[in-house]
């Protein structure tokens, strides 16, 4: 296993360098450059224009700029953004990351939970009403034009029903007197989620060692509910719960949209794998033993069908740091995805490469985790 891991890490490093190089030259090949928009000011004298070029490094040929970039990259320096000059790329990523992660991890989680549940039920009652309905609805949403779905949801829930905020991630009229920045609240919300995750994993480990199902359930449910209640109480006592709630309220519409758009993916994976699993002999044996239908479905079939979904989910988590250009734009949720768009539109090379590299690292790590997880979840797999 260790040998495998070492080999994969080495592959990742080599791949990363190839990736950075390809990305760099692709962007370099685009016509024009960032400084063009400033050089198109006829009031600037030639000396000042040359100075501007020098400030942004455009006085050097492209291959020298590439070598400088790679040298800085080796020291984990992603450079200075052109369009947010002279802010460091890492600062921009750090500012936008919590917003993106909070939104996209939530929607990925909701989407997979929904997909898992619908998928297993649809497969269990194959060709039934639920199977037909969920497959049809899922495919319709999966193939819909995402901006259209976003606009429709905004219109329905924000304009017509007026039950959800139209856009943005906070309400300015509430936040104008807030003692903390939204960034701080985002980070605290993420920390709360992390604490919950840790408690849940510990509870899962403990429950696995327990013998009876009621005991397992008690440990899992008690720890989860206690963590949620304690977190809510801490938030209320801190006096910042209104702000946290405001963010959550603003998140409902984008999460709903993303979930509707993408749940079919995980649902169909789950459904297909379940259909294979339920044909296995041990499922027939379980049924013949007289076990209740839902126990056979959930304990015997679904657990074994979960493997592709889990690895799929882990890889999806890697992509969440990249955010989504369309979702972030449609819901005015300025995260990493939006930064991509801005960097591309302004030809902000350092920011664009920095974002791609950052996302790339997470995706590669997610692939590695998925490989490891495969071996952990399925004892038949050995590296």
């Amino acid at each position: 296993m260790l040998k495998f891991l070492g080999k994969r890490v080495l592959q990742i490093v080599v791949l990363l360098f190839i990736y950075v190089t390809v990305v760099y030259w692709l962007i370099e090949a685009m016509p024009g450059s960032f400084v063009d928009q400033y050089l198109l000011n006829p009031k600037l004298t030639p000396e000042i224009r040359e100075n501007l070029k020098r400030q942004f490094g455009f006085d050097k040929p492209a291959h020298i700029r590439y070598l400088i970039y790679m040298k800085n990259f080796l020291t984990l320096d992603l450079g200075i953004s052109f369009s947010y000059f002279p802010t460091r790329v890492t600062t921009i990523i750090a500012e936008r990351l919590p917003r993106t992660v909070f939104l996209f991890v939530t929607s990925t989680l909701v989407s997979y939970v929904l997909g898992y549940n619908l998928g297993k039920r649809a497969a269990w009652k194959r060709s039934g009403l639920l199977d037909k309905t969920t497959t049809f609805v899922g495919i319709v949403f999966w193939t819909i034009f995402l901006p259209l779905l976003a606009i429709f949801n905004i219109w329905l829930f924000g304009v017509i029903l007026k039950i959800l905020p139209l856009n943005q991630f906070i309400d300015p009229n509430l936040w104008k007197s807030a003692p903390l920045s939204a960034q701080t609240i985002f980070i605290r919300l993420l920390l709360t989620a992390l604490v919950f995750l840790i408690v849940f994993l510990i509870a899962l480990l403990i429950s696995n060692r327990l013998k009876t199902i009621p005991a397992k359930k008690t440990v899992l449910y008690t720890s989860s509910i206690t963590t949620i209640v304690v977190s809510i109480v801490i938030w209320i006592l801190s006096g910042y719960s209104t702000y946290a709630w405001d963010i959550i309220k603003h998140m409902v519409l984008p999460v709903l949209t993303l979930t509707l758009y993408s749940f079919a993916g995980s649902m169909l994976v789950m459904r297909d794998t379940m259909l294979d699993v339920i044909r296995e002999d041990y499922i027939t044996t379980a049924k013949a033993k007289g076990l209740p239908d839902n126990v056979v479905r959930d304990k015997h079939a679904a657990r074994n069908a979960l493997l592709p979904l889990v690895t799929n989910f882990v890889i999806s988590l890697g992509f969440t740091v990249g955010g989504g250009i369309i979702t972030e734009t449609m819901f005015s949720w300025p995260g990493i995805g939006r930064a991509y768009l801005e960097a591309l539109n302004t030809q902000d090379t350092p920011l664009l490469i920095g974002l791609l590299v950052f996302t790339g690292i997470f995706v590669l790590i997610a692939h590695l985790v998925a490989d490891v997880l495969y071996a952990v979840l399925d004892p038949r797999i050995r590296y």
Partner: protein
Amino acid sequence: MRKLFVFVSILVVLSVFAQTINWALLQEPKTLNPWNHYGPSATVWSSYVLGTWYGELYAYSDVRFDWIPSLAADLPKIEQEGDLWAYTVPLRNDVFWSDGTQFTADDVVWTMNTVMKLIKEYGLGGNWASMIDPDYFVRAEKIDDFTVKVYFTQPSLAKANFGVLMAPILSKKYWEPKVEEALKTGAPLQTLYNYDNSDEPIIGPFKLVKWEKGAFVQQKARPDYFDKGSTLILYKNGAVEISNPNTGFHWVGYGEPTGEKMLELVTGPYVEDIIYRIYLNRAAAITALINGDVSFVFNSLGLQKGEADQLAKASGVKVISNTTNGFRYMCFNMRRYPMNIKEFRQAIAALIDREFLCSRVLGGQAFPQYSVVPVGNAFWYNPKVPELTPGYGMSYGERRKLAIDLLKKAGFKWVVEPKIEGNNVVRQGRGLIAPNGQRIEQIELLAPGTGYDPMRATMALYIERWANEIGIPIKANLVDFNYIVQRVWDEPFNFDIYMLGWSLGYYPDHMADFFHSKRAGVGDFNAAGYNNPEFDKLADEFLAASDINKAKELGFKLQEILAEDLPYIVLFDTPIVEAYRADQIIFPYEQTLSGLQYVYGVPALVKTAE
């Protein structure tokens, strides 16, 4: 107990009547730091927020754009001192920064000289460098606390009056130690650009309270704003009167303040807070406007037709339209044959029926332009220019006949000569042969694609068709904006004809920037390579003019020369269409060049609706 009750009651009343207005931005400001904003990170979105923070010695009046004193107490006195020209500017003594410090000559002298030093020694660029041109500006000197002398190498309306004297003035007390500290670092400009100036004293009516990154910027009205209650009156006879009853400041210029008033404004601020909400897409901002979440949407490009139609139907929303200060044009590469032949360019101009294109093809969404000074810039626009343009007012057939005659006059021939009868092209021309006997195979017209600007793309295709009808082998090549920029400025001048657009400043010195022969070098702005000694001489005089009427006369002549020589064919521009909630806010006026966004929504004048 009673005191507490009164205090609480006051708080309640204040909170009930606190007037907060919400405006929408379609992008987040890049920076609110003046060094960075007027330097390399200038964006219109930052301007909307901080555009009124800093005062300048002279400013444009509302609506009519008269050049009037702002921090100055009177117009400058100009005199020659040796080789230099000194502009003596008296300053107002009733101006205070938001930290309570009085505005004095020290602020002006320090700002101008520091910016000059940073430009010359450290390469400060962007708008700072366009406002304070180191070829003209020499230094600023303090005469007394409320008088400064600004020295120039030569008098110039463009570089002095509309340049240095309109540059933003920063607080010396606040910035001097920071700049000195920055100069000791390895990267002084970066240090300055990065400086957190959220506590910076300002002169304008609203001060930054909070910038919640990605969500909103909040500004609060200054109760101690020095100009509150000040009245600006524009008279129809051209006179301008400014008076502040609170401080006793009074100024009259451009004639006797008598007769009918064109505009009278009393400065506020009238609202307590302005929140600039950041929406990252137009649809969301427009929905927010319809929903009443915001009362105005800032957008330098204006509303599209569908959006304007949708908003016109919304209750409480008012849609307004204004002319813009810019133009879209096509430029000939006069370094290449046959674009260097005047009659050839005139023939192309004769073929282009701007009225037809704007009204019929573009459905009235654009208006025709003829001069390099837009019609909306009324003071500087020469109304004779349209008549000087070949083909103006002619029918379809007459335009083609004129174009053929112009080409023949210049010595062009055809393998198959075009034939026009009435308004019909009965025989299409083929095989255009230039006066030098060379057959012209193809002329490339670079134009932005439909994704960037469908109007220019459409117009390019029409021009191609009309030119082809009389045998001019123009081929429209619809490409990416950056590709055109690369071909024109980077390669350089690797083009036959290109089509782009300009947004302009109020003072039309762009005529010298775009067409003076000394600006025809690589990467410079005379992309056409236009070289006319007569034009150069007049342009030099125009730049050096210190009398506005003389400058106007010269500006008119420059426009007439360009209308005949046609290095550019100015085509059209679009009006800027905006919308606001008339049931929430009241703007003091609606008709102004480039719309209300151009004047940052006049925050000191806007009121809440009853």
